[in-house]
């Protein structure tokens, strides 16, 4: 079986890797909805970020069980850590949507 890093890289089938973009979409949408939830609920400071963390863990759990069928290394190079990592873009998106909904619901009458 392939053990060296180069041989592992050769076994990767590119169109399948590109299909993994559906996972990125799921991460982005879940961070947007988490932001909306945090804003509407009026969460502040650390409780908002706690909600974000909880949403990341929950969506990772769902992806782990449903998408990757409990074998993440088969689907995502880098395994569980890559699944959990939301990516810098999604953190900023969360903050943006959170601020937006917080402003709409709680600041403006």
């Amino acid at each position, binding site marked *: 079986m392939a053990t060296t890093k180069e041989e592992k890289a050769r076994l990767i089938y590119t169109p399948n890797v590109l299909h993994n*973009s559906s996972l990125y979409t799921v991460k*982005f949408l879940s961070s947007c909805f988490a932001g909306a939830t945090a804003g509407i609920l009026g969460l502040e*400071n650390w409780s908002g*970020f706690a909600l974000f963390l909880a949403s990341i863990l929950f969506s990772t759990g769902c992806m782990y069980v449903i998408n990757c069928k409990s074998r993440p290394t088969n689907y995502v190079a880098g395994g569980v850590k890559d699944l959990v990592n939301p990516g810098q*873009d999604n953190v900023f*998106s969360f903050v943006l949507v959170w601020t*937006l909904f917080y402003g709409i619901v709680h*600041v403006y009458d």
Partner: protein
Amino acid sequence: MGGSQVSLYLDPQIRDWVLFPITLVMILVGILRHYVVLLLQSPPKKMPRPAIREQRALLRSQILRETSTNSPVPPEYYKSISQELSKAFEAGTYLKDGPPKGDTPSRPPNPLTDPNAMDGMMSGMKTQAVMMVPQMVLMGWINFFFQGFVLIKLPFPLTLGFKSMLQRGIETPDMDVRWVSSLSWYFLNFFGLNGLYRLILGNDNSADGSRDMMMSPYSGPAQTPAQPQDYNKLFKAERDNLELAEALYNWNGKDVELRILRRYGKLST
């Protein structure tokens, strides 16, 4: 001072006429920028057939060599392809300008005079310019029209250092840093809309503002492409690599009949 407990009352019209329009305009400007960059990119110049042939010859031998230790190609084919490529590289039959004359040492074309390389550099600089202009224009527009009032309250706290940047135009030394002006809403959008662009425009979109800021310090001077490659030297090096790969060659169908028999237990080993 009960600064953090007191809540400011903001006119809902600010929300309708500032909050949503800024976001909408930024989304649209991002999409516009993406399409402008797409239109500005001139299609890659068609290379003449000898030039393509020389690149493809190198690629062919690299592909062959890549899997040589566990090759799917049977020995007769592998050896014949490998030897023919070796001979061709030695004689220089695939070179763009024909086999080398022998007396004049070949020099790579000067990047300043070679028209192919210039096009590459120009298009790179054009895209950089297009990226920066909308950012400046938007910031100027926001500073001009939406200045001097509080727009929104941030749900998370920030240090006092941010006060000067985020509350520009509002001269209140006591107000909580969480009440910010429209420029900070611009920054929030600037960073936060990248995910949206990735969703709408696909992964390689050119609407990503923040990525330019991170990349441009490094990729500016390093953009000069490795165009003037001396294929003669490359071919010589490739020939040595081919010999090495041939020595390491192993067909992965070797003794396959014995392996099958062993697997089904027909052969006692």
